[in-house]
């Protein structure tokens, strides 16, 4: 046999392999895939029932309600993000072997976003209709979620990586990352609100875009570092 390791390892193979594995894992458990989405739908359904079915009241609070529900749904999927990988030892293999660790971490977060943030973004305008969201606010809401959910997933990933070594990380994780979600929430809601009152939502959306580009480039390094610590403690 030739010496395959003599050739340079391929970074693309590393990235693609991790993405493929994580998507297979996600689609291998349809219930876990559906849970955050079902949660999103149910929480939003509760508002007309619990607060007021009045269209005027609902449309006023629609952007905020949709965003908060999306935030909580994102949070719901985070705890399991690295937990199972840690338990079966695949996490330590990843930390040990992947060179650089940055790439599989990006792939992992991308896969997670594809099964949480992306469906939330696509569902939001539909549920917005249920809350009487102004039609002109639909697109800014979706754009905001499309730019904001990657940030949420990545920031949440840092929390999940930091708490991966702990037995009961759930509540701690929420306390750790929810404050970090606040700027995203404010920008996302204000984009939708500006649009529904007939103003230009470009400002907050551009801020979200800037935040997303920064998060995508920088945060995976933090996640990788936190995962290293998590593996060392176990």
């Amino acid at each position, binding site marked *: 046999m030739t010496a395959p390791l003599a050739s340079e390892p391929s970074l693309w193979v590393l990235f693609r392999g991790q993405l493929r594995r994580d998507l297979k894992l996600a689609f291998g458990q349809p219930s876990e895939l559906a849970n955050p989405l079902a949660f999103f739908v149910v929480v939003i359904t509760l508002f007309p029932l619990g607060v007021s079915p009045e269209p005027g009241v609902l449309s006023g609070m629609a952007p905020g309600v949709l965003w908060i529900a999306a935030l909580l749904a994102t949070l719901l999927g985070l705890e399991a993000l690295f937990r199972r990988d840690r338990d079966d030892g*695949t996490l330590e293999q990843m930390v040990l072997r992947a060179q650089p660790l940055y790439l599989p971490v990006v792939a992992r977060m991308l896969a997670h976003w594809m099964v949480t943030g992306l469906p939330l973004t696509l569902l939001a305008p539909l549920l917005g209709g249920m809350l009487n969201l102004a039609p002109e606010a639909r697109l800014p809401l979706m754009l905001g979620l499309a730019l904001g959910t990657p940030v949420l997933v990545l920031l949440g990933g840092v929390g999940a990586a930091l708490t991966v070594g702990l037995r009961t990380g759930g509540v701690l994780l929420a306390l750790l990352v929810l404050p970090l979600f606040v700027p995203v929430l404010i920008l996302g809601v204000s984009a939708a609100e500006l649009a529904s009152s007939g103003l230009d939502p470009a400002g907050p959306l551009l801020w979200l875009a800037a935040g997303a580009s920064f998060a995508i480039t920088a945060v995976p390094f933090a996640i990788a570092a936190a995962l290293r610590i998590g593996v060392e403690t176990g």
Partner: protein
Amino acid sequence: MSEPVLDISGLRCERDDRELFAGFDLHIGPAEAVQLRGPNGAGKTTLLRCIAGMHPEYEGRIELLGAPVAGERLLFVGHRPGISGLLSAADNLRWHLDLAGWRGADSVVTAALTRVGLTGYDDVPCQQLSAGQQRRVALARLALPTAEVPLWLLDEPFTALDEAGLKLVSGLMADRLAGGGAILFTTHQPAPELPGLSTRWIGAAA
């Protein structure tokens, strides 16, 4: 004399503020295997994790081929199998190849599974396999081309294996030794017959 593959000197290691060993030296050359023995809690696993770079609380020098240890130059099989139960054996092994950025064809996965006697189990999710079969999937990593690295660290590789599995794993180890690799492993069972094998005690009997 050839340069040692693994060179440990003056290693002092703590776990949970308890000193496990101090002044520990170990040199393993190419084509040498060392069986690490010692009572439970003596620090065998911790030593392996130290070498793999997954236990930072140590003092002393650990070098792999004269350089600090890098994860891509060793293969670590720990207590946790490194195999995802929801994925099939083939998917798991493919992922291990991908992790190393290996560009070759998928046929090596089938070959590795055949080698460990799991022909035909490629597509079964690993959690549906028996404990021994799962162990074999984890050990099939030793038969992948990405296992051709200077050092193997194997923590209890023989647990849950039947007689045939034991032979199989020692065969894989013998192959690696023949290829010039070094192996450090722990086991409580009598060690298999391997060329260049020595035993090293840590803890009580040292």
